């Protein structure tokens, strides 16, 4: 293994570990009843976000969905302000108005997440249109799930991105489920999301979304082409959320997954997969993990110590 490869592996692993440990801590502390909003965890789906984190520049844009913690962090969003937002505190990244489902950090180009399936897709395309009109050499990442590809707005947005050759990367995390409904119940078996995108004029690639290296190579190549003017692209990451749709727990007892499905995905845990296939210095892992733990503890302290917004602020910012 060359030094450069080792460095890339380390960066991917560190990014995924940070996201995992943050969300694990949210899950562990959720029962304290201080995080009073729905949380949709990305545990098991960290690789696409980590792949983007190695490629995105601060001036690139990104938007995401209700399951947006990983994307916010990977784009450079401030951890303390994210945790404070989930706690509904004034120090939160949306000053307590949005919670877990509405994260933003415009200082790093993270332009928002939405609780409505498919809602942020055209917003990300519009950001890409602005980049093109202003002749800025950046791209707009649009995170979406497989469920969102069933919304009309996905077709409309992809069509327009193709029509105007906009610098937009659709990052489709296909975790097979829209809440508890499997893809099999929602789309014909023969249909591939990548083929739908291609039919709309958006070049598309499939990649194992639990293989962080493969995800990174794919994102890096696609982004390089888009930066060079190739127009939009869609990357479909085959992946899986290991925890429940909404909340901190496991939910396999509900029986909506096929028997053995969760177990097979647990074996393909993206962090475990990278650890197993790479060579990592145990001391580096230990110090990296310790640094992340220190950062997380500080973030939760910040969140808990930040006051709630003053009720007098309620009516602020209805209008700009």
């Amino acid at each position, binding site marked *: 293994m060359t030094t450069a490869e080792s460095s890339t592996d380390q960066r991917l692993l560190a990014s995924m570990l940070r996201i995992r440990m943050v969300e694990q801590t949210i899950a562990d502390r959720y029962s304290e009843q201080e995080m009073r909003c729905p949380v949709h965890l990305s545990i098991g789906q960290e690789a696409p976000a980590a792949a983007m984190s190695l490629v995105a520049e601060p001036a690139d844009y990104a938007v995401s969905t209700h399951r947006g913690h990983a994307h916010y962090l990977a784009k450079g969003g401030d951890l303390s302000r994210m945790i404070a937002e989930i706690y509904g505190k004034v120090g939160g990244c*949306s000053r307590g108005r949005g919670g877990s489902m509405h994260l*933003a950090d415009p200082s790093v180009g993270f332009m928002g997440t939405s609780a409505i399936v498919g809602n942020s897709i055209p917003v*990300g395309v519009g*950001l890409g249109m602005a980049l093109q*009109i202003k002749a800025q050499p950046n791209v707009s990442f649009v995170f979406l799930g497989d469920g969102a590809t069933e919304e009309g707005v996905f077709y409309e947005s992809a*069509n327009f991105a193709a029509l105007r050759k906009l610098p937009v990367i659709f990052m489709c995390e296909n975790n097979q489920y829209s809440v508890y409904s499997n893809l099999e119940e929602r789309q014909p078996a023969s249909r591939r999301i990548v083929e739908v995108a291609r039919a709309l004029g958006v070049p598309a690639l499939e990649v194992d979304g639990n293989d962080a290296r493969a995800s990174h190579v794919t994102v890096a190549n696609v982004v390089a082409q888009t930066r060079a003017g190739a127009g939009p692209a869609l990357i479909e990451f085959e992946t899986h959320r290991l925890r429940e749709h909404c909340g901190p727990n496991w939910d396999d007892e509900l029986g909506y997954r096929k028997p053995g499905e969760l177990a097979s995905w647990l074996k393909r845990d993206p962090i475990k997969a990278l650890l197993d296939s790479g060579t990592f210095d145990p001391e580096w892992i230990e110090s990296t993990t310790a640094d992340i733990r220190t950062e997380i503890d500080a973030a939760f302290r910040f969140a808990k110590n930040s006051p709630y917004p003053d009720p007098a602020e309620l009516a602020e910012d209805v209008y700009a």
Partner: protein
Amino acid sequence: MPESNDDRVLTFAAAINEATEQAMAADPTVLCIGLGATDPGGVFGTTKGLVEKFGSSRVFDGPTSENAMTGIAVGAALAGLKPVMTHQRLDFFLLAMDQLINSAAKWHYMFGGQFQVPLTIRLVIGRGWGQGPTHSQNLQAWFAHIPGLKVVVPSSPVDAKQLLLASIHDPNPVLFLEHRWLHNIADHVPVEATPAQLGKARLARIGDDLTIVASGYLTLEAIRAVDYLSTRGVACDVLDLRTLHPLDWPAVHASASKTGRLLVLDSGALTGSISGEIVARVASEQFSELRSPPRRLAQPDIPEPTSLGLIQGFHVRSQQIASEALDIMGLSLADVAEHLVAPEPADAPGDWFRGPF
């Protein structure tokens, strides 16, 4: 001798065109987007010539994708552009409610004031000439109900120009509702690109007996009625709201306080209308100042049918307004029909309106 600014006459449509052109010339971030924006017709003439002046990256036709295009405009606005979107009918825009309500109206507030959405959405509304159930809806009350949106309803060419400039300059999403029957009216319009102030009503007629609150096209019908009423010795305030959200409550309250009598006109269906809000606020805050119960004239709670046979009496017109006002004053309605002759056929603003849409 060259025309002075004050003498120059423009149609309402030309005033919109001029406002857009001046805004685009002054600010390179202003865009003009919409199905038909570059058509030969140019959205009833309102977007004519813009693509030739500003090019296809700033002025463009688009896919028939109202929801995505609204979200795309929101994204462009977040990135510092000022899109002006057009829709040839309000009804088409109903496909875009997710992006209007969940994105445009929310992005500023729900992210703690970190973003601005300076987006102007022009919606053509209308009635009559067989527009029918899905080409005639006046849903301004829906939009005014959503916190975070502004709703503008011009009634004259000068207001069309100055309120559109204000809408484009405003850092918030603004719905700009143009009544189809106004596009061809002509009046004096200053050349200067001077924006009006959103949220300010205009007193179009002044009188002590009765307050008539109107907006958009109904302001014209109200003025016709009030000019007749003055011959009957009844002097009315006609308050043209110009903006439905924010609404100029001080102007409404002041006029109601002065006259003690209120008649509110509304081009939307009665139930849940802006007129209901106005009557409710005046009644609850100024009850003791009123000399008679407030009244409303609005559309019936019925989809607008197409047939000329079904449309008789469907729309609020000057004759109905004058009759209502005389009834409030306890006066005879005897010669109203004689002096305020309803247009014939009843489905057009006048015989100059020839369709087809």
